[in-house]
């Protein structure tokens, strides 16, 4: 168990180290998400009345779209540097490679959210900075990175990879986006925890289902 965690941490740390050197993913994801938010503030005339109605949806749409652009990079770097073979040669099981890459993606999307959500709160004048939002954001990011890492690995050898990943990723994560949007809208409307909780349950179920399945089938993806 301890060794497995060490491997996951090592792969995640490697990705994080690369990221601190070139800052490709976090900057790209945050700027992309902020641009989507900005376009929506012009597309919909945001005021006190409709901000609560439309804000949560816009926030998660922008994070989902921006997240895909980041996920596209997850395995692209490994492929460009021919380091995927090295990872596969390492004497560790494939599901640990999956967990490590997922951990890295989770950190990137979380970092982007730390930048995006406060700016969203300012632009839309919504009180989202509550502890419930932390739970929502955490669970959604786990789900995004679980499915995203799996599909990113599947699409590394596909022609037009940048197009294929969102086409696979977005329909599958729709239930998770629904859960995120609904629970965020409960948060901004100051709802009680039980109302938020029914959506949180859905997100938990989604996360568990896809982490288990992904770890199970990831081994077969990297085989040639």
């Amino acid at each position, binding site marked *: 168990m301890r060794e497995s965690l060490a491997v996951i941490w090592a792969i995640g740390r490697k990705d994080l180290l690369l990221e601190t050197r070139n800052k490709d993913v976090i900057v790209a994801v945050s700027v992309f998400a902020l641009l989507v938010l900005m376009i929506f503030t012009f597309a919909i005339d945001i005021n006190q009345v409709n901000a609560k109605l439309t804000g949560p949806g816009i926030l998660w749409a922008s994070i989902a779209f921006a997240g895909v652009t980041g996920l596209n990079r997850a395995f692209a770097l490994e492929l460009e540097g021919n380091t995927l073979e090295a990872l596969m040669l390492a004497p560790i099981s494939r599901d640990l490679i999956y967990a490590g890459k997922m951990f890295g993606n989770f950190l990137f999307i979380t970092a982007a959210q730390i930048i995006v959500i406060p700016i969203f709160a300012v632009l839309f004048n919504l009180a989202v900075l509550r502890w419930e939002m932390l739970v929502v954001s955490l669970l959604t990011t786990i789900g995004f990175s679980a499915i995203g890492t799996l599909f990113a690995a599947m699409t590394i050898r596909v022609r037009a990879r940048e197009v294929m990943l969102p*086409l*696979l990723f977005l329909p*599958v994560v729709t239930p998770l986006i629904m859960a995120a949007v609904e629970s965020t809208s409960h948060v901004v409307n100051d709802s009680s925890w039980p109302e938020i909780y029914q959506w949180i349950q859905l997100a938990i179920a989604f996360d568990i289902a896809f982490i288990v399945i992904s770890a199970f089938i990831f081994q077969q*993806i990297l085989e040639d």
Partner: protein
Amino acid sequence: MTKVINLIVSPIALSAVLMGTTLWLIFVWVPTETNQGAVQRILYLHVPIAWGAMMGIIVVSAGSFLYLWKKNEIWDRLAVASAEVGVVFGGLALLTGMIWAKPVWAVWWTGEAKLTTTLILFFIYVAYLMFRAYFPPGTQRQRLAAMIAIIGAIDTPIIYFAANLWSQAHPPLITGPAADSESSLGTSLGVVLLASTVSFTLLFILLVKMRYEIRKSEDEIKHFKRNHQLDSAVLNNISQARGTS
């Protein structure tokens, strides 16, 4: 003569006769429903088409699962054939549903759980087919595609659950003139629906079978081509070797 007899008793002829009879039942035999009017007749097409789409998803998932398990090409061909037919049926089900909804519910589209689920599944299986088209051919493509199909199947109950919860939070706008009225048709509705379901099921099976056979021929041609190239490469090598010696 035997050719003519074969054609008459072939599944294609049977399907054509059944479909003709079904259309006659739908547009001539069954009386017009009093509350919804003529538009209600689309139900006799919509329900069997949606059923076909559902069969498509079940066969894709079963075929993909069996492919991953047995590694036999047959299951992969069955999965892709039924995905293609299923996507067409799914698209038609969405289209016929919208045509019906506009006069009855007063909107083309609403956030109702079954509609949302059908739409998302339609997109998942379109992505499945696109993935197959974009990925370089080989066993890896078949394996990954099978995984995508299974992920789609596992996602289905979660999507339905989420869509259901969502539509409870945002009650769908069903305010059309005949949204809640009881049907004025008794058993004749059931008869036509049954006949239509049988003919569309047969059509589905027939289309999948045709697509399956085309797929098989494609694979065989590829196989022959590869062997032929190998043969000619070997011949070239031999002649070159002879030339140099």
